[in-house]
């Protein structure tokens, strides 16, 4: 704090601190507290709010547990978010290894630029782009048919297929960068030492590089999983009739039923249950929270 004062002077420091406090308090903490408080109150007509019926209870939360459909949507959301996380890892790990250990330092900035350009376009635009690419008479099918890979166009947007494609595309970089940083910090001599001792490439990865990259993989996975499970744009744009995402149910409670109370209860359930799930998975893979913070 003293350091900050010395460097930027009183005025600037106060402005910076106030703006941060405003963002944190007014834009993050207060709305969440408001929703949290509301999630324990019943959905009532306006004249009953504050009346004798307006009491705290867990009824909104119980709505979820008494609805098999909602539970099943939630479970599928978890399953497919895990799949997205796994697919992101499958794409990101080799790329991260290649970028951090194989590419010459000279071409690195160009490659990173190419990788990050898609991030400059908003998520909604990217999702619409995929909507067009994947449509039945869209460019992907035309391309595949023109090079004789397929005979009839593939219906991409059925089941969770297109949602998976969209989510992996949107979040793969959140997996790439932490893994890249982790592998980057690995001493190249260790890779060479493993090879020198006779290890084939896969064993070097399994015993030396992967264990070292574990914290990066863990933080990337947590990010991708949480973002996927909480994503609303991609699932609603690229969804088909038989793919429902849990966030869509929250949206329905809030915007279609106008029942903000149950909606916020569902939102907090999503947060809590995902946190429990992530904690359990971290236990299984023996990742500590402190590893991720590194």
């Amino acid at each position: 704090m003293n350091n900050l004062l010395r460097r930027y002077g009183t005025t600037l420091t106060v402005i910076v601190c106030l703006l941060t406090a405003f963002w944190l308090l007014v834009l993050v903490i207060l709305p969440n507290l408001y929703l949290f408080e509301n999630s324990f109150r019943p959905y009532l007509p306006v004249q009953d709010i504050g009346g004798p019926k307006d009491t705290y209870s867990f009824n909104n939360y119980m709505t979820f547990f008494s609805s098999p459909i909602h539970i099943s949507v939630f479970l599928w959301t978890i399953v497919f978010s895990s799949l997205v996380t796994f697919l992101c890892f499958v794409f990101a790990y080799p790329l991260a290894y290649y970028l951090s250990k194989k590419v010459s330092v000279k071409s690195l900035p160009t490659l990173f630029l190419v990788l990050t350009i898609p991030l400059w376009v908003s998520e909604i635009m990217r999702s619409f782009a995929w909507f067009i690419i994947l449509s039945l008479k869209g460019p992907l099918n035309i391309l595949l048919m023109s090079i004789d890979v397929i005979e009839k166009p593939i219906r991409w947007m059925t089941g969770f297929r297109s949602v998976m494609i969209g989510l992996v595309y949107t979040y793969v970089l959140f997996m790439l960068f932490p893994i890249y940083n982790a592998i980057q910090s690995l001493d190249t001599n260790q890779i060479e030492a493993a090879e020198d001792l006779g290890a084939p490439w896969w064993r070097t990865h399994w015993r030396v590089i992967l264990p070292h990259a574990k914290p990066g993989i863990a933080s990337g996975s947590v990010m991708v999983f949480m973002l996927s499970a909480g994503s609303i744009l991609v699932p609603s744009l690229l969804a088909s009739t038989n793919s429902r995402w849990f966030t869509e149910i929250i949206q329905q409670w809030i915007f279609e039923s106008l029942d903000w109370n149950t909606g916020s209860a569902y939102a907090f359930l999503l947060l809590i249950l995902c946190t429990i799930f992530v904690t359990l998975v971290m236990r299984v893979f023996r990742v500590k929270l402190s590893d991720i913070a590194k």
Partner: protein
Amino acid sequence: MPAVGASLANRRGMHRGAVPDPMSASIELENVTAEFGSFRAVDNVSVTIEAGEFFSFLGPSGCGKTTILRMVSGFISPTSGTIRIGGKDMRDQRPNQRPTALIFQNLALFPLMPVWENIAFGLEVRGVDKKIRRERAEELLALVDLPNAADKSVSQLSGGQKQRVAIARALAVEPSVMLLDEPLSALDLKLRQHMRAELRAIQKRTQVTFIYITHDQGEALAMSDRVAVMSHGKLQQVAPPRDIYDRPANGFVASFVGENNVFAGEIAASGNGQADFRTPLGTFQARLGPNAGANSKLYLRPEHVRLSHEAASANSIPVEVTDIAFEGNFISILTQDASGRTIVSEARNDGSSPLPEKGARLNATFDPDHAVILTDDVPLKAGAH
């Protein structure tokens, strides 16, 4: 390495001092050149290293010695030339297919594995059973004098202990050739001297060919059977340590290995391996070096400069003592001749002769056999020593 399983089996119960089967191999470098872009790191090097030999490459940083090591281990391919290990051409052999084990300058131990898994990694790669791996790791820990460390983590070890683990890890794969890339440079002086003796002892015990890379002449001279002095990618001299020091092949070797007083001048007359060398200070008698010629200089080691009150008939320079530097086991006496140039003399700190006073006027004399006339074909890189 097909015999690992079998040789492990008959070596169970091996303890400290047991001698593994000698399985060293010779290394031949034939016209080996390595270029990086337009830079020639190794320039047409040919040398044969005998099986079971302790061989050092000595040179200033950037002289190409590490490149040679990486070519032998397979991480770099030579631009041209041939490398043979045990008579077998190593072209297109990946590092994991070569009978070499490299000890890295920073050791490159695997920090996430306990000590014994580090050592047994090469055996794990070869599919050796876990129980045997563990036994073998403990045998090797005994060999490098580090018992009870098997389950420690690498970060718990001291510098010297890490060193030993790295050696054990390399020995575990039973290499025919051990390659060591300045492995002692990170240790403090006492430990370094101790590890020198250890390395030498391990080499004698295992009979494996050791190739040792260093810029430290003390290490190279003390440990090696033969030393190759390198500069600018070229071999300057390959010889046993004594010959390197006493019979340097050229001016570079003379000035890189040990200290020298160097006098510029020209050969006035020569014959019978001796010459009269004319310098501005007078004409001295000296031995003709192997490459003495038109641009030669006179090289004289400080320990061969005697200071006395009487002038000798030949090879005598009147000097004045300017400074005395106490180095512990010897004393360095700095003197100045009439022209103001410094001549260094060294005396053993054994109390045999009284030290001269600062400012004393004496004569620096030397034996013609101890001064050598050499040409410095390769300029010594500034600040390289």
